[in-house]
């Protein structure tokens, strides 16, 4: 069995390291926490590209390790994110979170390198478990459970789809398909749940901010981007993705513009940026798919950086609400720089990684004459600069604050991680050609040409004008914006009292009848609840009754 796994997989290295992590102590634990992502990243590049070894498992030809170009792009991004996240989280004391983070990162690598549907699904589930534990280990159990249930639902949909696909085609091979049968729709739905697509986008902003200052960095990198990867592999050119992507881009922008909490704002913006990737996957041309992968790559870097900056602010001040922050720039210069680099990259300011990848997406849209999406996404880009490039830094860092909180300097490891990502983002932004070996398709895209840079600068300065003009409107306000998750987070709590209010008018008239009915109803619901709690405490007679009933039913049916 072991030898058939062939060369060591980056996924295995990380998962085994994650399992071993709680068993070692002290500096050894921190060293392992850092060494495993380094080894995984090295493996991503050392593995020769090729079809991978076929492992026979219950008659299915599994290919758990199939290194191809796409796997290498995402493997590199996941590897850098894991490495930077591990560096950043060195001072995190919670070993459960660190172990789970490594397993989570390993599962993401597993998805990148999986060469068949079954291995893919296995890593998909491991990823759900790992990420749930990362959230859980910060103590918010209800949010963790909500997150777990959403992902179990996604897993179920994906599994049902895969089972249908396998039983229809008889093979577990990963192949590009269209959503043209129930099974494939189920598969697409399962992947879209993880991507944060509507109508279930709300889980991203619900769950990610509940993790610790270091946990969110890992969360921001893997789940949604792994879903993008799987979409590139399975559903390239699926027209439905264009619309899902556009809806996500608009949703992310609108909710982020309204949001007060930094990490929740950044979570909404994850959905928005994944929307850009989905539009590109929906286009399906070679350039568009490469652009989607590249944008995922860049997004992993800058979103991890932004989450690090947010985590540093949280750790230093105990606060992430914009309405309660302000004037941090002087006290935390490095965090300020990191946040600006990350934000500018998200907003595709020239000389950042985000500019390169967004240019590639726009070029792909233009090449396919997808005018509607091109203009819509350009407008959303301008809006994105509003929330992340202007609103976030202004209110968190630069505006004069009444009472500046007393920030503490972040640990050296946190600074190093942020510096690493800043360097990577700027290097890619200044020298886009370094990416050509990784993504050859983008070699023809105009990136740092004068007209293109000028175009982007006009767009950004125009957005800045609007920002200054309507500044009071964008002032952060404490509160929350309703989302679909209201259905499962608050509706149940509301329905019962509302029902009581609804029935009140009729109550006077029915006063005579009501009491016995209500008594019976409440007795019934009490009994129902008690029935579940005491499910086992039936009387013997009840069992005998059921046995008799069953026999009677059998015999009756037979006699008929």
């Amino acid at each position, binding site marked *: 069995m072991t030898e058939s796994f062939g060369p060591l997989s980056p996924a295995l290295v990380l998962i085994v390291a994650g399992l071993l992590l709680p068993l070692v102590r002290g500096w050894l634990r921190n060293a392992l926490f850092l060494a495993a992502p380094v080894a995984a990243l090295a493996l991503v590049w050392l593995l020769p590209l090729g079809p991978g070894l076929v492992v026979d498992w219950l008659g299915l030809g599994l290919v758990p390790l199939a290194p191809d170009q796409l796997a290498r792009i995402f493997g590199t991004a996941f590897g850098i994110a894991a490495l930077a996240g591990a560096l950043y989280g060195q001072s995190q004391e919670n070993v459960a979170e660190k172990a789970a983070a490594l397993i989570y990162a390993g599962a993401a690598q597993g998805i990148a390198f999986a060469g068949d549907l079954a291995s893919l699904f296995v890593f998909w589930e491991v990823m759900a478990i790992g990420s749930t534990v990362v959230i859980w280990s910060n103590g918010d159990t209800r949010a963790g459970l909500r997150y777990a249930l959403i992902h179990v639902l996604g897993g179920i949909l994906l599994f049902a789809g895969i089972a249908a696909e396998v039983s229809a085609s008889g093979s577990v091979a990963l192949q590009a398909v269209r959503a043209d049968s129930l099974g494939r729709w189920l598969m697409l739905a399962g992947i879209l749940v993880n991507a944060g697509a509507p109508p279930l986008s709300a889980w991203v902003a619900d769950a990610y901010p509940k993790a610790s200052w270091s946990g969110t960095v890992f969360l921001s990198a893997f789940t949604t981007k792994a879903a993008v990867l799987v979409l590139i592999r399975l559903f390239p050119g699926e027209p439905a993705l264009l619309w899902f992507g556009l809806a996500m881009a608009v949703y992310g922008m609108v909710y982020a513009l309204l949001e007060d909490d930094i990490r929740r704002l950044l979570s909404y913006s994850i959905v928005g940026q994944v929307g850009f990737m989905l539009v590109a996957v929906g286009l399906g041309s070679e350039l568009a798919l490469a652009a989607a992968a590249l944008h995922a790559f860049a997004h992993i870097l800058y979103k991890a950086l932004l989450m690090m900056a947010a985590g540093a602010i949280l750790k230093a001040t105990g606060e992430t609400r914009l309405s309660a922050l302000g004037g941090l720039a002087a006290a935390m210069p490095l965090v300020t720089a990191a946040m600006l680099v990350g934000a500018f990259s998200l907003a595709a300011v020239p000389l950042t990684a985000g500019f390169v990848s967004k240019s590639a997406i726009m070029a792909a849209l233009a090449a396919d004459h997808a005018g509607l999406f091109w203009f819509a996404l350009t407008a959303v880009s301008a809006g994105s600069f509003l929330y992340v490039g202007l609103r976030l830094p202004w209110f968190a860092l630069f505006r004069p604050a009444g009472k500046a909180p007393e920030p503490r300097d972040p640990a050296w490891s946190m600074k190093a991680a942020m510096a690493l990502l800043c360097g990577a983002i700027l290097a890619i932004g200044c020298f886009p050609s370094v990416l050509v070996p990784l993504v050859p398709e983008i070699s023809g895209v105009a990136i740092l040409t004068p007209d293109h840079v000028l175009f982007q600068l006009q767009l950004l300065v*125009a957005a*800045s004008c609007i920002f200054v003009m309507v500044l009071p409107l964008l002032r952060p306000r404490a509160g929350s914006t*309703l989302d679909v998750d209201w259905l499962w987070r608050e509706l149940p709590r509301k329905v019962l009292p509302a029902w009581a209010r609804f029935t009140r008018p009729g109550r006077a008239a029915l006063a005579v009848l009501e009491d016995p009915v209500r008594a019976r109803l409440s007795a019934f619901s009490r009994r129902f609840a008690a029935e579940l709690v005491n499910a086992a405490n039936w009387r013997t007679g009840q069992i005998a009754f059921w046995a008799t009933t069953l026999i009677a039913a059998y015999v009756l049916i037979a006699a008929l």
Partner: protein
Amino acid sequence: MERSRRLALMALLVVLALLVVADFFVEDHGSFWIDGTPGFAAWFGLVGAALAVVLAQGWGLLLRRTEERADD
């Protein structure tokens, strides 16, 4: 509008104007005709960002609440 904001806005508008002027001197490669016209990104950015704010504010009027989520 307080003074500093007005100043900032004026400075930004000047920069924007300069950028639009510069746009007349580079060769544009538009993909959809209109986006290749000089100054397109400037007015489209103004309109797009304004639309984004309007959309967000409208959505906020409908669905933004002042209280935190009960179970956060």
